[in-house]
């Protein structure tokens, strides 16, 4: 489904404050997914949806006090991040024993090399070798989506916020509470994983 373009903040915020329900529904549909990425990255899958709903309630309440020192998107993602972190503190380890960051950093890249550092299996030329060609193929689009879903939650959040949403790394690190250097490693691993999935599909 193609997502309808969300109006910019200057248009959207007054509409929301004036009780425009259509604008609110658009907002929810546009951001619910990325909010869930953030929640999952911080507290794991089991209560992510609950935390996102909590965050929506908080955002609805706080909107009239929103001072616009960041974009609405960043502001909302910070609210989810804070809800998730405070849940994490309260419920400590009882929610889950997964440590998303540790798991993500432990995973190695998909590319394989010989002991002399050369390619074990040479990259082949792709027949679909432009973004448009990739996205206009249902199989390839599905393949990218599936690969995204297979990524560990923190990698999923980093690559979605960075490459799909186009947010800057500093904001992303801040929202996900990870260091700059870790975020770089995670971003590269995630990209390499998706490239590898596309590559496999192109070899069929």
């Amino acid at each position, binding site marked *: *489904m*193609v*997502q309808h373009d969300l109006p910019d903040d200057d248009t959207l915020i007054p509409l*929301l*404050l*004036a*009780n425009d*329900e259509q604008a*609110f*529904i658009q907002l*929810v*549909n546009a951001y*619910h*997914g990325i909010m*869930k990425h953030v929640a999952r990255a911080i507290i794991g899958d089991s209560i992510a*949806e609950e935390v*996102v*709903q909590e965050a*929506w*309630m908080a955002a*609805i*309440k706080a909107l009239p006090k929103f001072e616009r020192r960041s974009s609405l998107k960043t502001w909302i993602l910070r609210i989810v991040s804070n809800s998730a972190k405070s849940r994490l503190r309260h419920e400590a380890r009882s929610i889950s024993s997964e440590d998303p960051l540790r798991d993500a950093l432990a995973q190695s*890249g998909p*590319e394989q*090399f010989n002991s*002399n*550092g*050369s*390619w074990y299996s*040479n*990259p*082949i*030329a*792709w027949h679909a*070798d*432009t*973004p*448009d060609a*990739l*996205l206009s193929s249902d199989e390839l*689009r599905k393949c*990218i*989506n599936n690969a995204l879903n297979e990524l560990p939650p923190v990698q999923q959040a980093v*690559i*979605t916020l960075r*490459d*799909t*949403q*186009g947010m800057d790394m500093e904001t992303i690190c801040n929202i996900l509470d990870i260091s700059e250097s870790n975020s*770089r490693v995670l*971003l*590269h691993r995630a*990209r*390499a994983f*998706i*490239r590898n999935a*596309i*590559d496999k599909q192109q070899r069929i």
Partner: protein
Amino acid sequence: MLHCKDVAEKASAYIDNELPIRTRLSMKMHLFICYKCQRYIKQLKITILSLAGLQNYQTDLPSESVSKELLDAFRKKYNT
């Protein structure tokens, strides 16, 4: 001299233009002579651009009941 393995590891940083100038130059030297790594970098770039294009398709919508609940809360707050 960089190996293909090093080039692959630094590929994202290279594309994002975040490498120190020396490393960047070594990468360029390697890429000049290695079509395999050229291909890899090109494919990684295409991957990144495809992810940007995915924004128009990506949807993880809330369930109907959640949407309704949020809309109710919104109404309650802003309906004057």
